[in-house]
């Protein structure tokens, strides 16, 4: 494919751009393979650069032969209005943009074309290598080891090459357990609290309606428990959902076979439920014209705050089990790709002050979300402005909800975070659309396959530069 085939028009004069909080910009529109650029005619050089990948949906309203208006609804939640003169130009611009925002092949994405214009002092691709990260958690002679059983991503496509598992579980056992867990996501170590209680995450066990069991899985879970200690399995689905999952080949750990583990259901909404909630929230946010301002009740009925509450509640429960009971915890939902990651990462922010520093938070995002296999590409392919008919069930603002939860903790503990609120906003923006390769693809395997570490720049390389970082720091600390 060549971008030239898609770009029916690359330049268009006399367009008017309306943006929130900005003056109307009267200028020239240019369309490149990755950007929409509007530059002002006026004396002040004012420009808007918008990545096509940032555009979630385009709405067009043609006005006869005189032209028309395009609404560009962005994944960063902005809505831009572009007035274009001339029916022919209008149609060409609209068609071009619609094609460009749907370019699927990730290697055509901007990160593969972007060249950093600064000296990279520290390569973000190697800043948070599992070996160095986990060396903070495990010491030689420990009960834990790094396993490379997944080095070619065959045992579990969504896991990284290196994972931390109990020392006494052989790689061959891991393969057996992978066959027994959804998506091959066998239980791995997420966090060790004060060197004792551990936090694990996984996919659901494939119990099926026949009540299958896996001795290796049971042995792995038992081996992490200290003597006479019980652990908790936090299932982020309702009891009913977990029950009915058996019929679809999934299920939950039965007490009979996991006698030392207590199972707790803490339901957290996922996937399209979350996206619907965000859609309602943004409907309310963007509806500034409604005469009778029902903002608060609209906010409430969007259920977004409730989602935050449930997620935080669950994370607090996990934190409490680890900290106060000294009990180990395994968290999973169905796939172990969404709410499980929210919960394990929030619990670490609650418990571990290191995660509240810039570096520590970056490491957490990298470990739990990026290497942990949250499918950013599919989840963020569409967002709340895409009409619901065109959405897929696998589009979801899981990561945004997580960041919002962090924001809530941040606003309650404003002196405990090294970074400021805008750091979270910046991560949100880059997770949806970015010149950096950090959030590309769905997992490490995919990123390796497209050679992202060699061919793209890392967000961390950029952010951690001393020219950039200070503006994201919290003045309270």
């Amino acid at each position, binding site marked *: 494919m060549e971008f030239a085939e898609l770009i029916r028009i690359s330049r268009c004069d006399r367009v008017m751009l309306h943006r929130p909080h900005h003056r109307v910009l009267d200028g020239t529109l240019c369309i490149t393979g990755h950007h929409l650029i509007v530059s002002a005619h006026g004396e002040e050089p004012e420009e808007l650069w918008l990545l096509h990948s940032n555009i979630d949906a385009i709405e067009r309203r043609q006005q006869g032969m005189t032209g028309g208006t395009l609404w560009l609804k962005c994944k960063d939640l902005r809505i831009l209005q572009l007035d274009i003169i001339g029916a022919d130009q209008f149609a060409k611009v609209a068609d071009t943009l619609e094609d460009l925002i749907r370019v699927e092949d990730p290697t055509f994405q901007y990160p593969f074309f972007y060249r950093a214009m600064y000296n990279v002092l520290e390569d973000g691709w190697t800043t948070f290598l599992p070996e160095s990260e986990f060396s903070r958690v495990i010491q030689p002679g420990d009960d834990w080891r790094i396993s490379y059983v997944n080095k070619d991503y065959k045992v579990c496509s969504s896991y990284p090459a290196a994972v931390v598992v109990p020392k006494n579980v052989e790689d061959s056992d891991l393969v057996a357990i992978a066959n027994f867990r959804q998506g091959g996501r066998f239980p791995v170590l997420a966090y060790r609290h004060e060197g004792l209680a551990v936090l694990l995450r996984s996919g659901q066990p494939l119990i099926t309606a026949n009540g299958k069991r896996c001795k290796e899985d049971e042995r792995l879970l038992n081996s992490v428990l200290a003597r006479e200690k019980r652990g908790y399995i936090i299932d982020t689905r309702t009891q009913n959902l977990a029950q009915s999952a058996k019929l679809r080949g999934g299920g939950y750990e039965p007490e009979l076979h996991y006698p030392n583990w207590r199972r707790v259901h803490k339901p957290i909404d996922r996937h399209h439920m979350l996206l619907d909630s965000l859609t309602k929230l943004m409907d309310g946010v963007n509806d500034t014209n409604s005469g009778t301002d029902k903002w608060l009740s609209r906010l409430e009925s969007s259920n977004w705050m409730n989602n935050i509450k449930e997620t935080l509640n669950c994370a607090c429960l996990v934190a409490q089990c680890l900290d106060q009971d000294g009990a180990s915890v395994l968290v999973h939902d169905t796939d172990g790709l969404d709410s499980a990651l929210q919960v394990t990462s929030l619990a670490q922010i609650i*418990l571990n002050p290191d995660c509240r520093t810039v570096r520590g938070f970056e490491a957490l995002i990298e470990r739990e979300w990026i290497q942990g296999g949250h499918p950013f590409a599919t989840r963020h392919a569409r967002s709340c402005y895409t009409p619901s008919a065109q959405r897929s069930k696998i589009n979801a603002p899981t990561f945004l909800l997580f960041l919002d939860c962090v924001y809530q903790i941040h606003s309650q503990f404003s002196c405990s975070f090294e970074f400021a609120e805008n750091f979270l906003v910046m991560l949100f923006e880059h997770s949806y659309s970015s010149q950096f390769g950090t959030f590309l693809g769905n997992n490490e395997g995919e990123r390796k396959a497209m050679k992202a570490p060699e061919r793209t720049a890392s967000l961390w390389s950029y952010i951690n530069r001393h020219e950039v970082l200070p503006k994201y720091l919290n003045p309270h600390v």
Partner: protein
Amino acid sequence: MFSGVKPDKKSKVKGITQLGSRSSSSSSSHSSNSNTTRSNSSSGSGGSSSSSSSNKGGGRKSHSGSSSGSSSGSGSPPAGTPPHTQMASHESLNSESKSSSLNSKLGHESMTVRDGSRTLRPDEPPLVPGEQLEGTAREVTYLCPYVGPKKGTLSVTNYRLIFRSPETDPPFELEVPLGVVSRIEKVGGANTSRGENSYGIEIFCKDIRNLRFAHKQENHSRRMVTEKLLHYAFPASHKLPFFAFGYCEQYPENGWSVYEPIAELKRQGLPTESWRITRINEQYELCETYPAVWAVPAAASDNDLRNVAAFRSRGRIPVLSWIHPESQATITRCAQPLVGVSGKRSRDDEAYIQHIMDANAQSHKIFIMDARPSVNAVANKAKGGGYESEDAYQNAEVQFLDIHNIHVMRESLRKLQEVCYPHIDNSHWLSNLEATHWLDHIRCVLSGALRIADKVESHKTSVVVHCSDGWDRTAQLTALSMLMLDGYYRTIPGFAVLLEKEWLSFGHKFAQRVGHGDDRHQDADRSPVFLQFVDCVWQILKQFPHAFQFTEDMLITILDHLYSCLFGTFLYNSERERIEKEVKTKTISLWSLILSNKADFENPLYSSNTKHHVLFPRTSMRHLCLWDKYYCRWNPSMRQQEPVHIRYKELLHVKEQLEKHVDELRKELAARQTHDSPRVASAIV
């Protein structure tokens, strides 16, 4: 970013969990180690020093998954989730035990007042200078809605009610200045009360909380307590002096000198060619609710002033509140004109308004902002009042700001209290909040003030503000717009001046609106007008965190002493009454406390560059929040879990050091420039 101050690596944010009794007992034992000072060990009605019985807080379900009482709340998260604020929270919360001192500080500022050297018996509460113990009842149970019943000793003094329970360590303490008491009711009769804790009293407070105490019938203590409480909580109804007249604490600063009317007018640049300062009301004869000193248009003679006074409700003529230092556009305030049904006119009043307009050469127009909804303004004609007709007042444009009257506001606050105290319905928090309309009213007041500030600043046009009497909504509007326009009022002494001037000297009827020492709790003249103003100030402060020299703690302290009657500042209805009662000589000013403890209220993020900025806050509903730190502060789960005030003091210290360092470097640079050879000097520059 200040270097050298790093986030606390040790601390855990365990607080956000939904309290398990285990965590609270562990941290309260922690806090008992460090809470040695008196002000630290006290607590609000919620009792930050709660311990194992904290499970009674919210009827939560025990969790199937947690073995030993870590009932981490599947069922009842205690807190609501307003858009940008707290959610679930913890009772005795953090390992950083200092927070309890913050809580107590916010709950009871007066506790920071030090006692003399007298030694105390163990169960005798420490008293403030001038305070006397009037009665003590033992074996009283305080029915705390958050931590459950506490058994202890209830003492009544001429200033406070003090309840101490030794059941926990540190002892549970509750103290309430009697000034906040709105009404006292007996619960349960002598023969009818069955069951535990059903016989006692309930105390309804003006600061969004109610207290229930249970007495033992056989002790016969209820009668004594009730009598003493009625006596000292309502001195005005018993022809007794307020406690402020007996309070004799020594403060290094004298708050009464913070506001000098002439000095403030001079600060604004008066007198000018067009404005003069007059003492025509020195004896409060022309207008008894106005101050002694006015600034009026120079073109108006004293006789004109008398004629205008006759045409304005209660003689409250348009008087200068604020003048723009550059454009000379002004804010003047007054009461409604006495138009009546017949549409009366006054040539003098019309000419006077024209003088105000002429005093501002920048504009050939003047706005008259009537704070009321237009229907109310029209309805007032039937009572002899009304508003300026644009036919009679050339070049004037009348705008109505749609702010409702004191009765609507009182009702709204009553609903808000129901939503906030004692428990918050988590699942309908936002819609319940919306139904109180409290934030709606805040929005109206704020956007009215914004409109005034905008006319003065951006359109360089003078504005006359009035409502009916010009002492409620008018005070809100002028004070808020002045706060937006003039950075001086956003400093600690400047804010004191603003309150002294726009609220106290211009006769906001504090005694009547608050009902100081008065037992008629249903009095229709009571209304939270001033509270609403302070809430608006908080909303602006929240939107401009660097533009205010003070923190919200100062606002809360001001509100606490609005009710406490510890200081003379807010007593009585007008300047005249305060002169008559010799308030300045016989009582202490609230500003003495605040100016003497400035560091407690100082905002480390304040940038004095913002002094020259005009603040235009956003007044959309989306930008307004409930001030939960005030309205929900009795609920332990809604409290700030971090000792932010300690961090603030640290930051202030760092800031001071950095400023000193900059000063030294500047001096060094200056010294080098004068002494060194020109070549080196130019290299530095």
